[in-house]
């Protein structure tokens, strides 16, 4: 998961070598796609977001030689692409509570095979910033240092946000299990 500074692919990418670009796709596309599905709640939009990431990065490939963390760089591009697509489609997950509920109910969301329905619903109700950190950590498989780079915060802040998101999920699941009477009593 961790890639050192000055990624070994960077020189080939900057030089415009197609095979290196294919290697980059094979390394990152799955993680980018899964995170995009989580952020956008739509597989077609996720495909567009991943394509936009590669198109944007290949156009500015000369800068790649200066990039310390290629994975974080591409996920930062994904974050911007997802925000643009969400804005374009007026489907921003955090835009409104109604949009969040609609997104949760959508059949097109990520496949929740091993997850309980309560967890899936709770995840859908999280605010966008917390869902974003979950997407980057769980679906993007990034470290907190990389998440910090993507979100423009420190690694500690990223870790705190993640833990807070997990706590919110736990609370939401508790409420769902016992909606009327507190279980702790």
């Amino acid at each position, binding site marked *: 998961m961790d890639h050192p500074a000055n990624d070994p692919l960077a020189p080939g990418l900057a030089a415009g070598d197609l095979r290196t670009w294919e290697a980059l796709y094979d390394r990152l596309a799955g993680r980018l796609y899964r995170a995009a599905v989580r952020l956008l709640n739509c597989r077609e939009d996720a495909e567009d977001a991943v394509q936009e990431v590669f198109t944007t990065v290949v156009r500015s490939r000369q800068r790649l030689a200066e990039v310390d963390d290629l994975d974080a760089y591409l996920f930062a591009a994904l974050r911007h692409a997802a925000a643009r697509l969400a804005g374009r489609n007026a489907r921003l997950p955090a835009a409104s509570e109604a949009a969040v509920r609609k997104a949760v109910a959508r059949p097109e969301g990520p496949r929740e095979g*091993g*997850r*309980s329905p309560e967890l899936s619903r709770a995840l859908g109700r999280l605010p966008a910033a917390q869902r974003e950190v*979950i997407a980057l950590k769980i679906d993007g498989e990034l470290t907190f240092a990389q998440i910090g780079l993507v979100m423009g915060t420190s690694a500690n802040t990223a870790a705190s946000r993640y833990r807070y998101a*997990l706590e919110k999920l736990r609370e939401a699941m508790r409420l769902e299990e016992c909606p009327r009477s507190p279980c702790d009593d």
Partner: protein
Amino acid sequence: MTDPWLSPELDEIQRALAAGPRDDPPSRLRARIIGRVQAELRGKKSALHRYPLAAAAALVWLNLALSATNATWQPLDVPAPRAVVEPLARQIGELLPELSRGDARRLAVLYWAGSRVVPCPDVPSGRAPDRRVWGEEI
């Protein structure tokens, strides 16, 4: 994925989040994106990028053409008689006060020229048709 800094309960939620089948990108996406990357590497630009460039070029050309037309002085072959044009320009200026003096004079010259044009049929007489204005050769 187990993190020692998470409580067992939160760690369980984290593992539940990571569990289950994962969404993999469809295979067609690879061909689509690699094709796009290849096109970018070859320097091909999409129609979406060509269109604004063409539109910008057309606008620049139009702007230059209008500027050149406005800045070009086109003297008439036949000097317009001041005695006719000046009062006419004054009348036009009174009717259309928003016109500049130069524009009013230009319109007056055009009106004067138009009033003196006589339709001249192209008679196949073997010589070039005359262009006359009320008997005056122009």
